[in-house]
């Protein structure tokens, strides 16, 4: 039998989880998109930054959370550390898709835009970003769905969210508790995926 107050807990922890994801995604977007654009202009930096983002992605998430705890300012137990880790994970797909999306713009189209007398700002906003939008949005979608899943591990370092159910359920071998965390997390992921792919289609330029 489900315990009393379970529904209220599900609502509270789902809200906490959503906030954790939204904050992390906001930071990841604010860093990833401008950095991706910068990398299209600075070839020398590209290898280093992508390398760093790639390495971050390969570190097992539980280990990354652990590594961050002893680091001053960003570390410690709690939400801040969780957000830092989630941002590091979300960064790669956003960064890489921004870069490949813009670099994938047809060379003849870019040359025409420059030859027509577009400034580099006009080239970016009127040509490169609109044409790269579906690929950038695909990156955002992947990052969002991954972050929703990874955020369940944030509970291990006191970050809260739906992971609280899962870790509690594992510890007490209580399947209901595990499902109370896993099912809402899966639903959040499905809803975000659906919503973002709808936006992706709306923004397809051609």
């Amino acid at each position, binding site marked *: 039998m489900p315990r009393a107050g379970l529904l209220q807990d599900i609502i509270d922890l789902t809200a906490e989880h959503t906030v954790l994801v939204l904050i992390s995604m906001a930071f990841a977007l604010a860093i990833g998109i401008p950095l991706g654009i910068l990398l299209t202009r600075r070839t020398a930096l590209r290898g280093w930054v992508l390398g760093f983002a790639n390495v971050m992605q390969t570190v097992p998430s539980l280990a990354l959370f652990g590594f961050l705890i002893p680091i001053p300012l960003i570390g410690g137990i709690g939400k801040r550390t969780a957000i830092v880790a989630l941002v590091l994970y979300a960064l790669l797909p956003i960064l890489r898709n921004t870069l490949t999306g813009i670099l994938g713009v*047809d060379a*003849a*189209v*870019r*040359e*025409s*835009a*420059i*030859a*027509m*007398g*577009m*400034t580099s700002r*006009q080239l970016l906003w009127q*040509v490169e970003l*609109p*044409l790269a939008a579906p690929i950038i949005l695909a990156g955002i979608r992947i990052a969002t769905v991954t972050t929703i899943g990874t955020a369940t591990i944030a509970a291990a370092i006191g970050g809260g969210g739906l992971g609280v159910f899962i870790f509690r359920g594992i510890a007490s071998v209580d399947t209901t508790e595990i499902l109370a965390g896993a099912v809402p997390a899966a639903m959040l992921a499905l809803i975000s995926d659906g919503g973002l792919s709808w936006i992706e289609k709306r923004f397809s*330029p*051609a």
Partner: protein
Amino acid sequence: MGSALTPAAGSAAVEFREVSFRIRDSLILDKLSFRIEPGETLVLLGRSGSGKTTALKLVNGLLFPSSGEVLVDGRPTTAWNVIALRRSIGYVIQEVGLFPHFTVGENVGLVPRLEGWPPERIASRTRELLEQVGLDPGQFADRRPRELSGGQRQRVGVARALAANPRLLLFDEPFGALDPVTRRELQDQFLGLRNTLQKTSIFVTHDVGEALRLSTRIAVLDRGRLEVLATPEEFLRSQAPETRAFLAVLNFEPRMHTDEHR
């Protein structure tokens, strides 16, 4: 030195002065010097790698000379505001480079929009240009480039280049990817537009027939050097080796009938 900045009366539309262009160690253009007078169509004829496209890109500031200078209306390209220079020069390339996320009308009206024309003026200019290149504005203005045939796309490319009434038009093998019949139609249209608009044009091609049809003068480029600069009539009589090589292409077919068969 200051005199170079003051456009003298009767100055050339475009002038190359001892222009060399280098990428690392390889010399793409070697001391190119010539003048293009207002209203003429100069065809740059050469093989792939002869430097003709590079020469074209030096005119609208997509590239700048390694040494020497390119003057547009008497001013070196380095002394121009490069954005203003490019907006005053129409540019048509083989791949057309239409913006796939813009309609045909938006593509044509691009430079006027960048120049801040009022919307009604852009709309009427767009209609006028589409008619000029033989596309019905009612039928085509709201379509996307991908819904057009290759020939129609290139017509839109020409209309876009003409939009802001440029001082000069640059064509980089614009009809090279089209079938021969469509190519001929667009060449005829080019001649028609030239006669009505009287625009100075530089036209790059490796098709000697096209060069003879469209040019007022032909410049033959051979590995970055200017071999011959001549009217079509003089060109046909030239004895210069690269020019003979191009003319041999024209003469190939009749010779095969007379000498080899029978």
